[in-house]
């Protein structure tokens, strides 16, 4: 047990209870709390104040420290997450060690969770009493600084990762961009046009893609995944696994002679880039503008591989075609690379809702039911039909139904609004009408067009003769009731404006699928030590004030991995995340919270703490045979403190005397 550090003459506590406007004062009687605390031992001064975080509030605190020679400060207000930094700064400005300041969370722990004013006030008093006892035992602590690695890792090469990578590289930073797919570009590369300006998605994206590919400060690793992350802000060690493409990136020139000379004369395998609407060969380049312009071999279908093992069932005409370049290598193995970075940007994006979860819409049963992403490829000039709207049976559709909110705003599937579907549905309605001349029906619940030029785009569609029917579609069926419905897909919907059920026969159905977290978001979350919201998207540190930060310092998020958003918002967020990373890097160091563990004299050297430390921060001193904790590595998790059999590990800010007195304070009358 550490002896009472209060060998200074006298503990002089200043206590402040903050009204936080009505947030706290609406439920807790703040003046009563202040009056109660004034009578507690050691308290020299006790005040209630409207906004402690305001400049005058901080000024008041500093003035009091000086005038009343305070040596402890307690602020009872909101969460330390929000303002601990503020009040520690103010304390330090008054000439006191910032760790002699302590916060009580009256807002989240009392005001927001209770309605009974009397009981909430009593609880506030108990929490304040606990803080008074705790802070008495606080010691002055030093903040340590650690240098920051200037390199940045970006995970995910969609538009968010691409934009952030270019911003950082242009600012002179070394960037590693890791992408799981064989090419960067993400979902945006598959879109035809972008709303509301109808810019060609490829035209605005591909220059950025090739800039990433050629930038001297960007190391691009496609077909690769991050498999391990260790360390902490400023000093991460990351392992990247590169999957074998069976084509050497540095030797391939992208001439695609190998593709032309593959023993398969016809492309016959599912083309992932075109959502399976087109076909590709076993050796292929994902799409014309793919970055890097390097082919790859799909070992699942290449004749040279059978069950992933090299066989000799193929004449290897591709190798012959490649010739002296010798880029093709059937022996290529998985590669593991280790890099050191200081900051990480996670921009892993989204996946679209799996429409098979809603069998009533007939996807997979009726060939002419499409997902929106399929239609993006269908209307695209470089898509499988060259931009002509042709159904799977080769017919041209005379009528098309677009079903909104598939897998969005639905308690049975995903509850959230996916934000982009209304607008991309309108865009597809425009493009389908333009390309096919068909009658187009939109079935919507509400049309949400909150963006620059979005409402105007909707207005434009109204003048183009696109039909809008308000109602959630009940089912898509081939059950024909009238002769006109024979051979058609019938959309059954309650028209909630007209007040009756409609049956609309169409030739083609487009399901506007919502956005959801990637299937492996939980694994990614664990790897980067992030949190997820209830819906599974990565959680930002604060929805308004720290929208691209996570709860792990040095790890930032941007784009749809944090929640559904459109391209402009994604790019803005990616820029913000890059700027946050830049700010960290350019400061050059990170401050480390001094809440580290430390070994006391009675350590017997039993080593039981060694395997428990998740950060490998504990070693045994060969001379003293006692445990030693590396403060730079310790993250203050407390595992060793709790597990030490002899109780001989302490932790700054969480010392036994501080905690025991705090508990005694809560329980005291």
């Amino acid at each position: 047990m550490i002896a009472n550090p209060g060998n200074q003459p006298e503990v002089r506590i200043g206590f402040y209870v903050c009204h936080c406007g009505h947030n706290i004062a609406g439920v807790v009687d703040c003046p009563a709390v202040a009056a109660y605390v004034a009578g507690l031992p050691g308290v020299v001064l006790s005040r209630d104040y409207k906004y402690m975080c305001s400049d005058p509030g901080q000024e008041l605190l500093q003035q009091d420290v000086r005038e009343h020679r305070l040596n402890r400060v307690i602020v009872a207000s909101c969460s330390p997450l929000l303002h601990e930094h503020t009040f520690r700064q103010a304390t330090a400005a008054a000439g006191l060690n910032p760790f002699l300041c302590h916060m009580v969370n009256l807002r989240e722990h009392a005001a927001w969770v209770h309605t009974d004013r009397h009981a909430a006030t009593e609880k506030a008093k108990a929490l304040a009493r606990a803080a008074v006892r705790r802070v008495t035992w606080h010691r002055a602590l030093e903040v340590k600084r650690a240098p920051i690695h200037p390199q940045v890792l970006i995970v995910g090469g969609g538009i968010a990762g691409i934009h952030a990578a270019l911003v950082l590289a242009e600012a002179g930073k070394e960037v590693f961009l890791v992408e799981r797919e064989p090419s960067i570009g993400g979902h945006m590369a598959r879109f035809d046009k972008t709303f509301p300006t109808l810019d060609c998605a490829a035209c605005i994206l591909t220059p950025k893609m090739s800039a990433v590919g050629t930038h001297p400060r960007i190391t691009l690793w496609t077909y690769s995944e991050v498999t391990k992350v260790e360390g902490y802000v400023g000093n991460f060690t990351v392992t990247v696994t590169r999957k074998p493409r069976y084509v050497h990136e540095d030797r391939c020139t992208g001439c695609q002679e190998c593709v032309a000379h593959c023993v398969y004369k016809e492309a016959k395998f599912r083309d992932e880039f075109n959502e399976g609407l087109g076909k590709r060969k076993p050796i292929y380049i994902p799409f014309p503008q793919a970055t890097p312009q390097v082919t790859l071999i799909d070992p699942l279908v290449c004749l040279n591989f059978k069950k992933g093992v090299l066989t000799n069932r193929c004449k290897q005409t591709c190798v012959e075609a490649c010739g002296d370049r010798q880029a093709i290598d059937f022996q290529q193995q998985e590669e593991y690379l280790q890099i050191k970075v200081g900051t990480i940007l996670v921009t892993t994006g989204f996946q679209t809702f799996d429409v098979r979860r809603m069998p009533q819409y007939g996807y997979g049963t009726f060939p002419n039911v499409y997902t929106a992403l399929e239609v993006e490829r269908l209307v695209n000039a470089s898509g499988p039909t060259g931009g002509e709207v042709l159904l799977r049976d080769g017919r041209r559709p005379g009528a098309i139904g677009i079903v909104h909110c598939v897998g969005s705003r639905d308690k049975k599937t995903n509850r959230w609004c996916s934000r982009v579907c209304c607008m991309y549905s309108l865009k597809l309605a425009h493009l389908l009408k333009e390309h096919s001349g068909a009658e187009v029906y939109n079935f919507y619940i509400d049309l949400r067009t909150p963006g620059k030029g979005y409402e105007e785009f909707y207005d434009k569609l109204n003048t183009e003769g696109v039909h809008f029917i308000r109602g959630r579609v009940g089912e898509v069926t081939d059950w024909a009731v009238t002769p006109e419905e024979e051979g058609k897909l019938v959309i059954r919907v309650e028209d909630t404006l007209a007040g009756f059920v409609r049956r609309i026969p169409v030739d083609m159905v487009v399901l506007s699928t919502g956005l959801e977290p990637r299937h492996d978001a939980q694994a990614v979350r664990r790897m980067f030590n992030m949190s997820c919201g209830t819906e599974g998207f990565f959680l930002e540190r604060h929805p308004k004030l720290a929208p691209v930060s996570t709860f792990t310092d040095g790890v930032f998020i941007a784009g749809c991995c944090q929640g559904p958003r459109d391209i402009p918002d994604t790019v803005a967020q990616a820029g913000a995340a890059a700027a946050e990373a830049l700010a960290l890097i350019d400061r050059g160091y990170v401050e480390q919270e001094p809440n580290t563990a430390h070994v006391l004299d009675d350590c017997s050297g039993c080593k039981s703490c060694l395997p428990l430390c998740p950060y490998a921060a504990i070693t045994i001193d060969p001379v003293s045979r006692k445990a030693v904790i590396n403060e730079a590595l310790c993250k203050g998790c407390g595992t060793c403190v709790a597990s030490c059999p002899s109780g001989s590990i302490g932790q700054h800010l969480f010392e036994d005397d501080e905690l025991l007195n705090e508990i005694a304070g809560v329980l005291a009358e």
Partner: protein
Amino acid sequence: MKFSYFPGCSLKGLGRAYEESLLPVMAHLGVELEELDDWNCCGATAYMAVDEAKACVLAARNLALAERSGMSQILAPCAACYLVLNKTKHYFHDYPAMQQTIGRALGAVGLSYRGATAVRHPLDVLINDVGLEAVKQKVERPLSGLKVATYYGCQLVRPYATFDDAWNPTTMDRLLVALGATIVPFPLKTKCCGGSLTGTVPKAGIRMVYILHREARKRGADCIATVCPLCQFNLDAYHAAVNSRYGRVVVPTVYFTQLMGLAFGLPENRLGLNRAAVRFAWRPPAPVPASRPVAAPPLAPV
């Protein structure tokens, strides 16, 4: 595998053919059914609509009896019984007030219910407990060439999709495919059969029956297979009214258990096939006598 068997009124009355086919089929598969002693009305349809509490109390008495008999699972073949028993279980667990009402009513007759009895439907048991492999092994006369429209009706999977999808149930499809039948795409799988409208507003009710028959016929079905006595009754008993109003569209309606009995080669006259108004004349092709096993030729030396 042993279940407390709750027949409900239908299986002893208009839906007798269901019981007559269910019992031998289940016995053939080694599923023991012990009829619940002193069972009463399940509380379905009219009761539920007029007074939910009374309906639940009626259903709960059956659940309590099953619990007292020491059986952990109750088998309810009728879709209406299945729904009401399930609904009562849900209400019992979700609404404390309902739990009290049920407790009081049962207490008055010296019964109690803890909420443990599982309510199962034969389709659920056949797919998940018996298993399609075991079913396949019992097939003597595959239903080759029989085209079936599978019709689940409204109550089996809604509102509680307990063992199958609410929008596109497939358990009966899979079962009948295992028996060798061909399933025709039938988009009206879960549409209303007319329910009691055939009695109260016959014009509307009979139109609904017609819609089902018309679609089944259009899809080339030889019969409609059902899991519900009320569906079977509506689709079968009103054949004359439907045919005279809309022309000859009616196809035979059978219980899925009757098709199982045929495939298992059980005596045809004991499957209740003669009870239907619209005769189902189709029979599986005669079994091919098993060919004698031929000894494999000796392997050539490598």
